[in-house]
């Protein structure tokens, strides 16, 4: 049996189906796992993705030839069967299952195994070959249960309030921001958000998602409005003049990278919360084992380490170089020029 998917300069390519998955160069037919900018890039002839991803792609990439399908709704063409399955990473995020002559390959895209109750619960998909991400493929990345992290965030907000400070939570505008919002909305009457998060929020509301109410940070809002309140802002806003209006404030960064002290210090964050939308070490191992795959390709992250460990565990594994995992989702967080 040959390769159902080949690793090319433009991305993961399925020769039988004549499509690419998350290509980093413009191609004719693209299947998109999720709407983060390192996976969904502009310039492709057509886009196939999950229903929930389409409105966000539209916001980010404008009008294109989009085809949407649901999870576990196989489509067949050119002798292959293609279906999407929940990846649990962000809204709409999907694993791609491709079957050809009884051989099954699955491309994970980005995923996490803990159910965040927004993105859809990760579904282990049995396959022969599994192409997995490895963003946090080191055993030091060992997440606390999200409920505990939410408690930490709430305690932090509470102590900021006692000190008369505004709590500025840094979270990616697509995925993390909605997750954090759900966790803290009941704490305070209102949650303020940066324009980039507001834009994503509006698109999701229009698409029918039920989300807590938010107030957009605009130049008209008086400084006093933010006192002791919670603001959610994307990483690109951290450390910019846009933040000044919240003074006195405390910055809490929500990211898996915050697991390591040095990374947190580098960010100059007052607090770091290791809340991730990616699987931790145990999650990656759990996911790989659940597929029953006999061959694993590890992409973006600690692919060398992860594939070596899998090989030692008796699962044939190799690393693949991709162009994912750079500038993750920064593109969506364009600064609000009018505010500066």
């Amino acid at each position, binding site marked *: 049996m040959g390769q159902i998917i080949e690793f090319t300069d433009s991305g993961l390519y399925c020769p039988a189906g004549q499509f690419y998955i998350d290509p980093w160069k413009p191609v004719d037919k693209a299947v998109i796992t999720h709407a983060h900018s390192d996976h969904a890039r502009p310039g492709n002839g057509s886009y196939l993705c999950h229903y929930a991803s389409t409105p966000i792609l539209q916001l980010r990439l404008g009008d294109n030839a989009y085809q949407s399908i649901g999870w576990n709704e196989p489509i067949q063409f050119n002798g292959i069967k293609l279906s999407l399955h929940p990846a649990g990473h962000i809204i709409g995020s999907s694993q791609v299952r491709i079957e050809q002559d009884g051989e099954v390959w699955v491309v994970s895209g980005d995923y996490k195994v803990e159910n965040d109750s927004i993105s859809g619960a990760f579904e282990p998909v049995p396959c022969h070959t599994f192409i997995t991400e490895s963003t946090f493929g080191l*055993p*030091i990345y*060992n997440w606390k249960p999200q409920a505990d992290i939410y408690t930490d965030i709430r305690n932090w907000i509470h102590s900021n309030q006692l000190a008369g400070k505004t709590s500025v939570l840094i979270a990616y505008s697509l995925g993390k921001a909605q997750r954090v919002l759900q966790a803290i909305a009941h704490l305070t009457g209102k949650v303020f958000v940066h324009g980039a998060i507001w834009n994503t929020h509006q698109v999701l509301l229009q698409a029918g998602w039920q989300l807590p109410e938010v107030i957009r940070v605009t130049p008209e809002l008086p400084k006093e409005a933010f006192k002791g309140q919670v603001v959610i802002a994307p990483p690109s806003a951290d450390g910019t003049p846009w933040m000044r209006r919240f003074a006195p404030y*405390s910055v809490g960064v929500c990211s898996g990278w915050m697991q390591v*002290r040095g*990374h947190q*210090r580098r960010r100059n964050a007052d607090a770091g*919360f290791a*809340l991730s939308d990616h699987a931790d070490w145990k999650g990656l191992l759990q996911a790989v084992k659940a597929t029953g795959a006999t061959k694993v390709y590890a992409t973006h992250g600690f692919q060398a380490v992860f594939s070596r460990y899998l090989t030692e565990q008796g699962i044939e594994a190799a690393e693949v170089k991709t162009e994912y995992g750079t500038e993750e989702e920064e593109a969506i967080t364009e600064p609000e020029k009018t505010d500066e």
Partner: protein
Amino acid sequence: MSNTTDHTIHMPGLGGMQQFAQLVQDLGMHTKTNDKLEALVHYFTHANDKDKVWVIALFSGRRPRRTINSTQLQTWCAEVVGLPLWLLEESYHTVGDLSETIALLIPEQNNPAVNGQPLHYYVEQFLQLEKADEATKKDFILHSWQELTSKERFVFNKLLSSTFRVGVSQSMMVNALARILQLESSVIAHRISGNWDPSTTSFDALVSGEGGSVDHSKPYPFYLAYAIEEEVAALGDPADWQAEWKWDGIRGQIIKRNGQLFVWSRGEDLITEKFPEFAALLDKLPEGVVIDGEILPVKDEQVLNFNVLQTRIGRKNVTKKHLQEAPAGLYAYDLLELDGQDIRHLSLTERRAALEILIQGLQLPFVQLSPIVTFDDWQQLTTLRESARDLNSEGLMLKRKSSAYLVGRKRGDWWKWKIDPLTIDAVMVYAQKGTGRRSNLYTDYTFAVKDGDKLVTFTKAYSGLTDKEFAQVDNFVKRNSIEKFGPVRTVKPELVFEIAFEGIAASNRHKSGVALRFPRMSRWRTDKKADEINTLDDLKKMLALYGK
């Protein structure tokens, strides 16, 4: 590992190790000096006295002797978590800190012990373990890892390691103590200096300066200078200033009290044994004297390249060969105590006059006055400064003649005015991930110059770039690495940097034949291509010129 940093949620009465772990976390995370100070004040207000004494000891470089090495810790950790050693090493290279790596790898207990043992309990256990067999040590470490939380485990491991850098300076700790005790910080700085044993000293005795026997070895806190930032002419009338050469050696204090001689380094290490040459001072110096000076390699009244002295500093025993090849001398800067009286409040001119009488009376060739550089105007001094490198000096020191001898690094009366560094353009060939706030970023580089059509490595450098530049180079390394040797990656020789350094010396330990002093990246030469870098010949010419 998430955290909450506001000190309002600290609860006095919680276990001492928990309190200490929180302090270390706060000090590491807070970016503003004032927040760090608050964290220290909070700690010293609430912690128990025995723990406080140990914190003062730890933060002033007095560490319990290392009884367990990092290889043992790594091996035991790999065993406990059931992971291969190579994976632990990969983790370590990414985190950049073994203590933290282990803290993260050991699984968190569901019911971590609240109200656990205090800090001093663990430190005292370490001291007791010094003579224990390996099995006993291992048993204690494994047991402690289990009962501590991740944050506590981190500081526990730190206590076992050879460094305890937690983002706090000694002077900041002194300021916090001064605030709580309502004393001048210079008084506190002096009281916690010198020889005292944290296991037997009580907090009150330490900070009141009254406890126990008199410590005759106690040095004064050093007065340090900032680099001058503006034009020297802005300092005003040249007649108000004394200029001296800035020497590149070991800043030290020579103390004679109670018929004994003590030599202290600026890092507050007692280094008397390292310099047997100085024993002759014991007979010659009068009782009750403290001299501030620079320990330098001196031969035939010439100051040699510091590199000469460096070869003997690290050695346990100083041999006859060392004494002949790298003889140490003292260049005296200042006199802090005379006839047992603290004279730091006198003016520099008065102290210098007393120093001159003292040194001239000694008649010891290896003890010299640091010569005063005479000048009439700033222009003349600027010209004189250019000749510093010929004397193996780093530049000039400018001291206000009326200045008292202050405590710590202060602006205003003393300035250092260094000569411009030497520079060379080189290409980056290897990269390794950094530590601390550079964890998981390629920030430690090795550089090469051209030798014909080959590249020859000659130095490493870790500093000088902005965070943004480091991020860009990190990205380049990740995309352009050729091979992996353990934690080191070879990269395409493409990025050119200007390397600045303070001195150059011959070395047979380096392939290039030269060793640089304080190399750092002074500029990223994005305007230069790899074939435009300097050559090994250029380096050798510099060695011939400045490498005496």
